[in-house]
């Protein structure tokens, strides 16, 4: 391990593979917090996971769980199970799990970008936002059970989802249950009283490189899987251009090197929460 990983980061569950993706010999190699790991499926589809920097006698076996279409593990001792997303069990939803995309930046930058509304009219212009409707109205940020909740966000979006036909006013709720995971509840264009759920599950390979898994539970009975994937991919690529061009790659937690305004309340709360939990992996002090 190149750097001592702080306990908050170490003792989390991380998605390391989609459930159904597998390499030759039913193995899948990846990297978690600077450690090479390997997932191996047996005939019954049970996944065992090992870290490759230790021999068997040194206790190389890692825990393995399946949840939300992903395989999860941890290098530490998680205090609890994988976070719950009860909303996804609601009837009538279509579930999606998209395979990881590698992004050359800290996973924390990716989560912060996901929590940000102000970039919609510029980075996702014509889709999730549009000039001159750029104002971010005040929203609420709370800490509940050591999670961050961002509530009462609303934004005008020209094309809020693959299924949206016209611009609508969208309400957003964000939840951060884990330093490298964020869940978004967003007005469904089809049933304005319901929420689509989109989650970003980040695997920090290194401090400054991450794999991003995205899951979604949507109400959409019109678009094909491929059409929905394309919509998601387009947004993702727009964000990736930003993420790979932020300097520095590590997220500054010191509050000195980046200027914030009220519209950044979610980002400020996220950074403070990371700091209060003693996180340092993927972060810098500036």
């Amino acid at each position, binding site marked *: 391990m190149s750097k001592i990983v702080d306990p908050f980061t170490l003792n989390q569950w991380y998605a390391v593979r989609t459930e159904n993706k597998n390499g030759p010999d039913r193995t899948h190699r990846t990297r978690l917090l600077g450690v090479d790991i390997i997932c191996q499926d047996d005939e019954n589809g049970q996944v065992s996971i090992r870290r490759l920097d230790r021999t068997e006698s040194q206790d190389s076996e890692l825990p393995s769980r399946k949840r939300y279409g992903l395989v999860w593990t941890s290098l530490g001792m998680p205090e609890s199970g994988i976070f719950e997303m009860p909303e996804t069990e609601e009837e009538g939803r279509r579930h999606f799990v998209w395979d990881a995309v590698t992004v050359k930046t800290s996973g924390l930058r990716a989560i912060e970008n996901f929590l940000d*509304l102000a*970039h919609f009219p510029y980075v996702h212009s014509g889709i999730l936002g549009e*000039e001159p409707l750029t104002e971010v109205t005040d929203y609420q940020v709370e800490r509940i059970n050591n999670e961050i909740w961002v509530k009462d966000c609303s934004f005008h979006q020209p094309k809020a989802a693959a299924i949206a036909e016209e611009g609508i006013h969208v309400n957003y709720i964000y939840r951060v249950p884990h330093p490298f995971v964020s869940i978004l509840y967003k007005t469904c264009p089809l049933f304005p009283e319901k929420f689509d759920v989109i989650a970003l599950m980040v695997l920090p390979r290194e401090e400054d490189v991450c794999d991003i898994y995205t899951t979604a539970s949507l109400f959409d009975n019109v678009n094909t899987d491929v059409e929905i994937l394309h919509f998601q991919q387009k947004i993702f690529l727009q964000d990736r251009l930003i993420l790979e*061009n932020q*300097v520095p790659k590590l997220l500054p937690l010191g509050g000195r090197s980046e200027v914030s305004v009220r519209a950044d309340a979610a980002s400020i709360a996220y950074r403070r929460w990371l700091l209060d939990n003693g996180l340092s992996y993927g972060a810098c002090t500036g």
Partner: protein
Amino acid sequence: MSINFNKYHWFAFYASQQIMPAEIRARSMWNTDIAVWREENGSIHAWKNRCPHRGMRLSYGFIRGSQLVCLYHGWNYEGATAQCSYIPAQPNLKGPKTACVRDFACFEKHGLVWISTVAEAEKEPDFSDFGEAEQTIHFCRSIFVNESPGLVGEILKTSIFIPYGNDLADGAKLKIETSQAEHHQTGANYQAIWQSGRDKKKKTELTCQTEVRNNAILVNHYKDDQGNEGSLIFALLPIDDKKTGVHVLFSGDFSSQSLTSAKRHYAKWAKRMRWSIENRNLQTDSFNPWI
């Protein structure tokens, strides 16, 4: 005099012609990523390539009038002050004082944008000996060599070339018969005799005086025995410890037609020169780009 790079000098950063109004370009100098951009009216600015808000590279942004707009959240920065003037997410908020981009002194001269990273830079490079008119020095091209700025400067001080107009044509196999260099306080003098590979009897003699100006500029006055004379100018840009930019310029009497072919002639030489510096034989001390 050896080439002494320090931050108190002006460095040729970009060719003016490569930055059109309302365009942004970026590259490094001393390991610092710097964006140069023009307002719609053509005024030029050199800024640290980082938005004070969330660190986005400003070179991905766009220009509106006299403002640079960051791509990430659209914060506007005023050209003249580098100060944030508008935050789209909060249209009624005045840009905070701290939302100010680091800007660098810059001006344009002889087809180049010159910048300095310190406020108290030494005096601007002087090319008045080439005449006052801007057109007396022609920009040829910029090349980037994977070698340290100091070494590239030393090599270029006595680097041998064929002057434009000499009838030892491009592409002919050449052999240096003799070459002599003498380094002194303010530069170097050197001579070389070329022999054509095809016609052994055909020779040319080149005499050069290189003068180091403002530390990072080499002015090479050349003359050959066929009556071609003029100057080649290398304005060096330290990108980092291992990479050097070389802006190649030249001066002399050219018709507009011969100007184009002279540019091509020296551009070709410059590429050749880069190749030979990067692949040079460390055992031999005399430098010949055609070996």
